[in-house]
């Protein structure tokens, strides 16, 4: 494909001045977009035009732009992160779209993630859940020997798969019930299989589950929409693990 071929797209973007303002869709035209632009760069182009025209640019969250920080949070055409498997918005490229496309861009929508402005939501509810038990308590001091605590390779891999979660919030945003189970379960499962985490396993799972509920997230109905939209492919097997841990904690 030619380097110079550009696309023109119609964007319907959610604009909202503040947490309590009503908010509505505004239509913009994105011109001069190439297949090499990332989705966020495409919005940067539109924002430059808006700024030049003296208008308010579209406000959106982003940081690393390389798929690891979990800041970018946009629902594109009805799917958090746009629906490309294991891809964050910042890693989604415009080659996935074609000239003339109409794109709807919305913020995460969940009662527990209030909208701050335009596409930015407050995701501190996930921090609240983590603070409720997503850690291990240990004495600091000398660095322990690397091989003092042996962790079998399979266990380490399992924990690592769970630890891939970047806390982006897409799981709750995609869930029909706005449930935070995938995020919470990833943390619970990661620590439950490691020797450092086992001492507090029971307390952790009950505290984190309670925190999740208190933050106003819904209940898990096992729709598995979360796994489908998760940019890190976090597996719903971790939710089953959380449920097992929760049952164990009852005894």
């Amino acid at each position, binding site marked *: 494909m030619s380097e110079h071929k550009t696309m023109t797209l119609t964007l*319907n973007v*959610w604009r909202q001045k503040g947490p309590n303002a009503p908010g509505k*869709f505004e239509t913009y035209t994105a011109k001069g977009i190439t297949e090499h632009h990332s989705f966020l760069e495409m919005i940067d182009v539109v924002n430059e035009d808006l700024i030049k025209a003296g208008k308010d640019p579209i406000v959106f969250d982003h940081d690393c732009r390389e798929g690891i920080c979990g800041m970018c949070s946009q*629902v594109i*055409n*009805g*799917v958090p992160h746009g*629906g490309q498997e294991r891809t964050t918005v910042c890693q989604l490229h415009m080659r996935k779209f074609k000239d003339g496309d109409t794109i*709807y861009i*919305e913020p995460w*929508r*969940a*009662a*527990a993630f209030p909208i701050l402005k335009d596409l930015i939501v407050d995701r501190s509810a996930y921090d609240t859940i983590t603070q409720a038990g997503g850690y291990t308590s240990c004495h600091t001091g000398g660095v322990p020997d690397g091989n003092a605590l042996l962790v079998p390779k399979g266990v380490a891999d399992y924990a690592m798969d769970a630890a891939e979660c970047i806390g982006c919030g897409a799981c709750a945003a*995609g*869930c*029909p*019930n*706005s*449930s935070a189970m995938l995020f919470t379960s990833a943390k619970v499962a990661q620590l439950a299989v490691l020797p450092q985490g086992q001492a507090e396993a029971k307390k952790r799972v*009950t505290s984190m*589950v*309670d925190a*999740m*509920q208190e933050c*106003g*997230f*819904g*209940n*898990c*109905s*096992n*729709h*598995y*929409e979360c*796994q*489908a*939209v998760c940019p890190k492919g976090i*597996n*719903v*097997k971790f*939710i*089953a*693990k*959380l*449920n*097992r*841990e*929760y*049952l164990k904690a*009852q005894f």
Partner: protein
Amino acid sequence: MSLFTSTVGRKIIMAITGQLMVLFVIVHLLGNSSIFIGPNGINAYAEHLHSLGPLVWVFRLIMLVLVSLHGWFGIQLTLENKAAATTTYAVNRKLKASFAGENMIWTGLIVLAFIVYHLLHFTARVTPDIVAGTDAAGRYDVYTMVVSSFQHGAIALIYIVAMIALLLHLFHGIQSFFQTMGWNSERSQCRITTGGRVVAAILGLGYIAIPVSILIGILNK
């Protein structure tokens, strides 16, 4: 929070009560299939059940507790879920969530309404279509009662619609039970889902086979 108030605890109770009801639904279908043997099959089966005396009432009480707990928490959780997802997307595309899964509350409520009707119909026998009598062996003639009722198209239709609702409920529900109990893994997830759907289809179609067989005259008086 306790098992009866927490988000995961209440799901576990729903899963256990739901699955016990699935066991009931399996046994009930096996019993009902005796209608295909004819009057001697189902009339003898019914008489045998009624001879259990007080056990029948113990059993009914257990079923009442199961339905009540499951139904109560089902409504409660669904209302909470609606409150947690207040605003909907202008464009809402689901990659994985299924029709059966998203409509559990509706298929559940249809089944609940059906249970009430079904008890009034064939247990209390207070609906006008009931043909009560005894067979040649002096037993209550369940066979004639059922066949006469289902020869009314509207009544057969109520049963068929309710069993389609049950089929959909279990299409999502059986695999959901295993996930809620944590009795699965990445490896078994796919097989459990398929297996659950097959069981749901066998149960739903199995029940539907009775009114359909009567409507098309395979079973008659």
